[in-house]
């Protein structure tokens, strides 16, 4: 099967400012691809290039097997911009009607069903909508024509947790329907539960593309164990993957790289009363990636060894 997105050396400079450089990316049919990176990394630049909003400085790309310059390809895409602007007296329902007609017609019932799912009020003038409600309108227009490929730039920003859950359910439904999703975020937690693979960008370069399961294994996470009685420090020293060990009476704190297996086995010899394992945090994952890339290597390793 042909790739949904294929780029080769895709590069965008804004004047002399680098937006994205030498991106080689492949997104496969039917997958949810999480596109991660801190602010200013180049996520929006990539997405705008794929939609022909901006033009590459150099490099090649194809989207759904076509040149993005061809307007027909855009009819097969649902797009949520990162900075969605909705304004004026026009009601959201009228705007959605227009977008639907421009894309060749969308049944009203489908719009109404999506609005109900996300609990969006479409009868309010768009200029009066809160950020969260604008985001809902943005999601509705991206999903409403049931596109083959959804491109969502920071889709969960501004959504309250309940709506976020509903949104993630919608993404899962899209994937089970065999359709493809590209969603960007600067927070891993927002994409990790639905993504099959993630790409990590930093300063305009793709640092890594990982299977989400593999990424979890690589992730650094903080673990805290509490026992019913004080434990000896030696029992936890020099375990593979365990760093920053702190033993204080009946409490053990450390960070682990990758699998927690050795730590769990060591802890099993005592009576565990409480176990906390923090979600791996993206910043730390970034640091592991940086320490692997030669250019930033030294700098990033220093960061890992001296946590603030």
């Amino acid at each position: 099967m042909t790739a949904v997105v294929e780029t080769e050396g895709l590069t965008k400079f804004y004047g002399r400012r680098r937006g994205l450089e030498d991106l080689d990316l492949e997104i496969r049919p039917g997958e949810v691809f999480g596109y991660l990176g801190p602010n200013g990394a180049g996520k929006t630049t990539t997405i705008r290039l794929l939609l022909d909003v901006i033009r590459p400085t150099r490099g090649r790309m194809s989207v759904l097997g076509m040149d993005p310059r061809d307007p027909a390809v855009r009819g097969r895409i649902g797009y949520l911009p990162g900075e969605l602007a909705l304004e004026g007296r026009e009601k959201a329902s009228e705007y959605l009607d227009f977008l639907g007609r421009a894309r060749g017609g969308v049944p009203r019932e489908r719009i109404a069903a999506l609005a109900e799912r996300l609990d969006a009020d479409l009868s309010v003038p768009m200029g009066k909508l809160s950020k969260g409600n604008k985001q809902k309108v943005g999601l509705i227009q991206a999903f409403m024509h049931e596109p083959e490929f959804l491109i969502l730039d920071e889709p969960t920003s501004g959504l309250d947790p309940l709506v976020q859950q509903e949104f993630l359910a919608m993404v899962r439904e899209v994937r089970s329907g065999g359709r493809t999703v590209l969603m960007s975020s600067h927070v891993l937690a927002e994409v990790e539960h639905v993504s099959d693979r993630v790409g990590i960008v930093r300063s305009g370069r793709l640092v890594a593309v990982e299977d989400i399961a593999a990424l979890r294994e690589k992730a650094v996470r903080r673990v805290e164990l509490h026992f019913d009685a004080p434990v000896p420090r030696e029992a936890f020293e020099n375990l593979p993957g365990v760093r920053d060990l702190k033993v204080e009476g009946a409490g053990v704190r450390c960070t682990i790289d990758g699998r927690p297996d050795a730590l769990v086995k060591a802890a099993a010899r005592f009576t565990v009363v409480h176990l906390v394992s923090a979600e791996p945090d993206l910043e730390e994952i970034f640091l592991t990636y940086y320490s692997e890339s030669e250019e930033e290597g030294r700098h990033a390793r220093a960061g890992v060894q001296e946590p603030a």
Partner: protein
Amino acid sequence: MPALVSKSLRDYRRSLIRWTIGIGAFFTLYLSIYPNISENKEIYGAQALAKYPGALRDLMGGMEDFTSGIGYLSSVVYQLFGPMLFVVCAMLLGNRAIAQPEEAGTLELTVTLPIDRRRLVFERFVALALGLLAVAAATFLLVWVLSAVSDMGVPADRILAAHTGVFLLGLFFGVLALTVGAATGRKGAAMAVVGVVAVGGYIVETMGKNVDWISWLRWISPFHYYLDGRPLHQGFPVGDYLVLAGATAVLLITAILAFDRRDVGV
């Protein structure tokens, strides 16, 4: 009607209504004082007006024959203020085609619709032209009725000729704003260009009649192709109007090509 044309017209509706009312109020005000002027020939007659400095008279289009219906209409209504109101209205509409939505950020979603970029500009132009045509048609009917009511004795086809010129002139400047917006994405730039071309063009055309060293510039002034044919006196200056329409078409093509080439929203 294509989705983008009807959507744009819906967006413009309020301001179209406001401009129709505003321009209509201007025409009504000026036409309603005409009876007063035609009855006071000693104040507004040729000798009285001859007291004004020549340059000022030139700027006001000569100010000959204030007291006849045609003279009054052509020097008061259709000389400066009428066209300028249309120019400003068209400029603001022209900015709403590309530059304003681009600066507001709403254009991003529009360009990701399955509509060709060139078509997008063209459909926005169609909406601009139709919107301006609606304002022109409504205000033409108003002038026609008012001039008949106040016994100005101006044939309807002359008013139509002048009004068509105002429309074409407005459309030209509207498309000029659209084109600068399509090329740069900045509505400030579009307004600056329209301001300079409109004010400069008007001055060049009116002063150029008697000032030799600028008279050669008259042929590049858009106002030349409206004022020079004296449509209220002589009927449709077909050739001049075709030049205006042709220049508008050239601008439109420039807009389409410029917008098709560039990044949006950067």
